[in-house]
């Protein structure tokens, strides 16, 4: 149960090795956390994430097997996590960027991106919503992206999955309105993580811990959508109004 200041006791991270999600866990008051579940495919990376959070003073951190693409397993998986105790915050943070050019040549690769980022998220998101609804409280944080605000030549496959996910999350939030369960849609711009390593840095690029602080503050206030950084809301509003011939010619 969240306390009166909106701080959680238990967190489930779907995409348990996501740098932004791990930074978000650390940005909650750590002494309050009693149970943190890092859900991801088994890997040395996941083990290292459990260790890193534990060493940062978070108690009750465990890793658990989860595959976003195996949608058949999602129902039982989410039931297992919630049967062991209420979850106050779920961070839906898995996603892949994919290789746009390779995917254009090999649609199988595009399907993989779509299955993970969209299909998998819709599947597990609905199971999470069902359980938050049953417990009568809790927040689902969906990591969308500004890439979903308007499709761009350089990453429209990834962008289209985030556009779909974003629309899904907004609708889910409206469905759950007034039930005590709440959905926060986060739209980060470029963030310095493994995903963006090697790409040219865009203006307003943030570190993961800055995004994390924005997420935690938005949760305390019960916000429904938040950009990271905040002013990106205006930038994207401007970009969305650009005529396509102009938008197409923008760098990258």
């Amino acid at each position: 149960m969240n306390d009166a200041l909106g701080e959680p006791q238990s967190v489930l991270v779907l995409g348990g090795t996501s740098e932004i999600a791990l930074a978000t866990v650390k940005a909650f008051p750590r002494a309050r956390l009693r149970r943190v579940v890092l859900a991801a495919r088994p890997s040395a990376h996941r083990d290292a994430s459990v260790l890193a959070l534990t060493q940062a003073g978070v108690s009750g951190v465990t890793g658990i097997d989860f595959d976003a693409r195996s949608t058949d397993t999602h129902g039982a998986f989410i039931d297992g996590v919630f049967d062991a105790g209420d979850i106050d915050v779920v961070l839906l943070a898995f996603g892949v960027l994919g290789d746009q050019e390779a995917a254009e040549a090999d649609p199988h690769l595009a399907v993989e991106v779509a299955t993970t980022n969209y299909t998998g998220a819709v599947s597990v998101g609905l199971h999470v919503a069902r359980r938050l609804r049953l417990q009568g409280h809790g927040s689902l944080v969906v990591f969308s992206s500004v890439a979903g605000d308007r499709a761009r030549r350089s990453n429209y496959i990834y962008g289209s999955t985030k556009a779909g996910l974003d629309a899904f999350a907004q609708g889910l939030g409206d469905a759950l309105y007034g039930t005590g369960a709440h959905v926060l849609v986060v739209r980060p711009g470029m963030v310095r993580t493994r995903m963006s390593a090697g790409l040219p840095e865009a203006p307003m690029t943030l570190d993961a811990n800055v995004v994390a602080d924005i997420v935690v503050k938005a949760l305390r206030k019960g916000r429904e959508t938040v950009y990271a950084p905040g002013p990106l809301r205006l930038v994207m509003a401007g970009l969305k109004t650009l005529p396509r011939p102009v938008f197409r010619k923008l760098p990258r």
Partner: protein
Amino acid sequence: MTPSLSVTEGEQLLTGWGRTCPSLARVQPCASVEDVQTAIRQAGPRGALVRGLGRSYGDASQSGGGTVLDLRAMSGVAYDPLSGTVTAGAGASLDEIMRSIVPQGAFVPVTPGTRMITVGGAIGADVHGKNHHVDGTFGTHVQKMTLIDGNGEIRELAPSGETAAQFWATIGGMGLTGAVVEATFDVIPLTSSLISVDTQRVSNLDDVMARMAEGDSGYRYTVAWIDSVASSGRGIITSGDHAPVDQLSDKQRIKALAFDPKALATAPAIFPSGLLNNLTIRAFNEAWFRKAPRSRVGELQSIGAFFHPLDGIQNWNRIYGPRGFLQYQFVVPDSASHVIRIALDRLREVGAPSFLTVLKRFGPANPAPLSFPQAGWTLAADVPARIEGLGATLDELDELITDVGGRLYLAKDSRQSPQMFARTYPRLAEWQLVRDELDPRGVFTSDLARRLSI
């Protein structure tokens, strides 16, 4: 059938009086003992809980996903002048009881700062009032009660004898041992409904505390309001006793036992969160302090004015805006009275403005394992939840209070850690054994119980 994701009929979003952390529950009105038994037997996996008038500040009277029993219809009040007792349904409010018995020359044994609580709530939280140093808690005055346990069975409980353990586990048990449906408690005889009040305006905290420690025993009721904005910790001590009828003027004697308080105003539904800030609170506190007489003896006040000034404004909890507020109330033993000043200083430093800061001396604890009061000092301060850095400040105070053998009041708590709760209520395990006997299936639970692993 797959349940809908959206809210369905009968479900309600509930919060405590502080309006923080809402959760959704199915609210089940119960008009009879049979209704209560059925609701308990049919409770789903998220359990059952009785909610009274929702005056606990935090998450004690809510249970996300659970069945919340509303016993307000079970509100019969019977006063027996011969034995000096009242038998009331658990859903009866102290307001209703006072309206019934004050004109007959009787008063509830204990009332907190609001009359808008039920008998069931008074027992569950084991409430205290301005007379704790003389009369103890509400639970101390309960002579017997009827409890529906976790199997839906009826239990008659008394403070001594075979059922004493179950009785005292229910006093202060936050509704987690079962559903109280009826209780009999003793009353204070009255010859008038007025209170004779002495007021002292005191310029600093040390002086306030010294005068309270010295003068308490001379009065049935005593409490101090502290100016939380002033670093001096200045305050106003008000002390009183039920006025004997011969202290009343001829005109007052005509209606010596009258009791008919009315709500004066209702706070607007939407209140801008910035309106209560350091400046407005400072102005209020200054005016409140100045308005009090330096020293006045024997002023006659009504029950409402003396005990329940805030009941005059309906929904006053809205003034803290949409993020809500919390009330931080702790007790520390006499040996740690210095903690009172530290707490006031810390709250002032973090910029937590409070216009309701109340200091009181407690008498000894009663036998109930989870009852809050113990001998020493208790301080209660309202603070808005939106204040930046409040969590860290309160965590620091929590640690200090734990270290000196103090604790927080569960009816006010909305943020302590389970570790602190377990350390500061050392009889928790003993209480849990009794609870497990009363509720072997673990039907009774609340958001508070889940948060604190009770």
